[in-house]
Structure formats: structure tokens, C-alpha cells
């Protein structure tokens, strides 16, 4: 088994609860910090003594939770600003090596990383990725966001009206931070393209790009 970690979870809502349950099952030591006394009682009933009542943004509460020996802090409160503060206090006051924040507003992904949060999980983007994958006609699908970076893997479907149909990849002036990694064509094995690969209708293109360049890529390949 992997090394057992001391993980502090701020917020005992549904996400905090299921997350704790899973992490406890994996053999980690888990403490949930939750403001609401009724939620605390429910968590203790279900999971045993792994809950502390208090505000997970307050230094005193985090100190009592033994944050200076925590390996990871995961902030799962419903407000982005609360998660930011929990992570920043954990990072700067208690030197927690890994802080993870849930974010609702997708823009905060970038902002939180800039402000020192180690990793963010964008609830909205995650749901959006799944929704896109469930809608087959969607021209650009987010497949994966690289953790800790602004890079992402997207899939694009070349249609008859795409400006890139009949052009080679070398002719499409891709942004510098964007690479077309794979071209998938019906009845053919997926191929790693080079500059001379010509794009055809119904090609599915897998590209490595960034959030900033995604719009340019979409414009170049799709419309």
C-alpha cells in the first residue's frame, strides 16, 4: 500500500463526506473540519471520530487540527473565497506541502494557482467536460486538464465547413503552445501527424493546447 497520509478536509458537505469515506478506506488518516454542529454529529456517527467542529479558515482551528503535520489539505466548502483562504493559511502559516481547492467559478482556477494554491479542481469545468462528451455533435471536447498547469488536451472534429479541410498541418498557423498530437480517421489507425499531414472531413484531431490558445485553435480548425 502507498504511504498513509494525514489529510485534512475543510467542509463536511456531501463532497467532504464521500471524499473522507474513500480516503479512509484507502488507509489514510483523515480529519474533517466543519462549522455546522449537526453535520459534525452526522459525520461522526457514520465515519467514527474524524470530525472537528470549527471554521477551517481560522488559524486557531487549523492549529488545533494539527495542521503542521498534515500532508494534504483539501478545501471543499461551497464558496470559492473560503477555499482560497483555507489553502493560503495552510500553506503560509502551517507549511502544508500540498493544498487542493475546489473552485466553482472556472476563472478562479488560474487565479488560485497564481495565489499559491497547489492544485484546483474546477467543479464547473469537470461537469462541462462530461456534458460535452455526452453531446456527440460538440465540435470541441475537453478531454483532460493537466494538473498544476494551464495545459489541456482537447478533441476537435473537422467538418466539411472547417477552414482547415484540405490544408496540411504546416499550413495551419497553430499558436506556439499548441501541438496536434494525433489524427484519428475512420478505418485507419490513429496517426501521429507531421507538418505535411492533410486534414480531411470527419477527422478527429487530438491537440495539446492551453486555455488561452484554445479559442484560436477552435477558430483555425473549425470556423
Amino acid at each position: 500500500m502507498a504511504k498513509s497520509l494525514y489529510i485534512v478536509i475543510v467542509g463536511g458537505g456531501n463532497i467532504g463526506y464521500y471524499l473522507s469515506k474513500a480516503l479512509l478506506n484507502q488507509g489514510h488518516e483523515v480529519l474533517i473540519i466543519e462549522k455546522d454542529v449537526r453535520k459534525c454529529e452526522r459525520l461522526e456517527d457514520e465515519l467514527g471520530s474524524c470530525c472537528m467542529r470549527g471554521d477551517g479558515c481560522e488559524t486557531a482551528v487549523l492549529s488545533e487540527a494539527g495542521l503542521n503535520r498534515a500532508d494534504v489539505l483539501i478545501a471543499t466548502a461551497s464558496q470559492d473565497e473560503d477555499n482560497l483562504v483555507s489553502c493560503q493559511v495552510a500553506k503560509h502559516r502551517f507549511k502544508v506541502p500540498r493544498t487542493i481547492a475546489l473552485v466553482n467559478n472556472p476563472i478562479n482556477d488560474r487565479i488560485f494557482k497564481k495565489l499559491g494554491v497547489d492544485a484546483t479542481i474546477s467543479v464547473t469545468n469537470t461537469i462541462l467536460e462530461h456534458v460535452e462528451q455526452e453531446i456527440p455533435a460538440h465540435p470541441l471536447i475537453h478531454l483532460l486538464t493537466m494538473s498544476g498547469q494551464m495545459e489541456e488536451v482537447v478533441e476537435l472534429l473537422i467538418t466539411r465547413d472547417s477552414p482547415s479541410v484540405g490544408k496540411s498541418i504546416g499550413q495551419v498557423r497553430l499558436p506556439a503552445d499548441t501541438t496536434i498530437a494525433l489524427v484519428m480517421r475512420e478505418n485507419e489507425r490513429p496517426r501521429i501527424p507531421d507538418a505535411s499531414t492533410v486534414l480531411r472531413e470527419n477527422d478527429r484531431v487530438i491537440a495539446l493546447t492551453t486555455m488561452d490558445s484554445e479559442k484560436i485553435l477552435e477558430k483555425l480548425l473549425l470556423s
Partner: protein
Amino acid sequence: MPGTESLKHNKLVIVIMGCGRVGGKLASMLDAAGHRVTVLDIDGYSFRRLPPTFSGTALIGNGTDEDMLRKAGIEGASAFIALTQGDNRNVMAAQIAKHVFKVPRVICRIYDPLRKDIYEQLGLESISPTEVFADLLFNRLENVK
């Protein structure tokens, strides 16, 4: 203090988040002093605190949202003041103003003195009304003979 000099002589663009008693009062003072003030609040009812003479902009919106701050004209602002009831909201908006929009002067209200200390160490200019008021009362009581 940087910025105090220019406050007297130049017309500044100032964005205030939170139109409570302090926010509303500060907005009207700065407006009366001839500055261009935009005040943001999530509740339009808060703007009743602005005097009828207020010539600035009152905008309904959440100041922790980057897009909203942009709408409030933060990109050209000389100062941003975070004055909502929530310490965390203030801390987040102030850091966005300072680190994303590079607003030259950012001041943040943080009620919790411990949280204020942490963010001061992180370079955020912060004021804890709790501390200020407790000090004030303490000093007055010390002078009671």
C-alpha cells in the same frame, strides 16, 4: 504612505467593493472630494446609503469575480478597497486586484486579527476594525483616572 499625496491633488479612479456603512460613507466622501468612484455590491438595496448627490457609479455584482471587477473598471483604477462583511471575500477580491490587475493601491478590511496578520505578512495592506476599535477603547479606558 504611498498614495496619500496624490489623493489630495489628483482625480483618481477608485473601486470600492461593498456598500455598507463604511463603504457607502467612503464612496460619498471620495466622490465629494472629486474622485471617480465605482462602488460594487451584490445587493442593490445597499446603494440607498449613497447620497443623492453621488456622481459615481453604483454597480450590482460580486467583486470576487474577475469579470465583474473588469466591468467595474478595475483595469484603470488607482485604488481598490475591499469592504464587504466577509473577510474571505475581501481577501480574495483584494488579491485579485493586486496580483491579477496590478492595482497600485489595494486596501483590505479583515475583521479577524489573526487572519489580518497572515495577509499582512503576505504583503496585503489590511486593516482589522476589531483591533483598531479594541485599541481605541483600551486607550480611552487607560486614561480614566
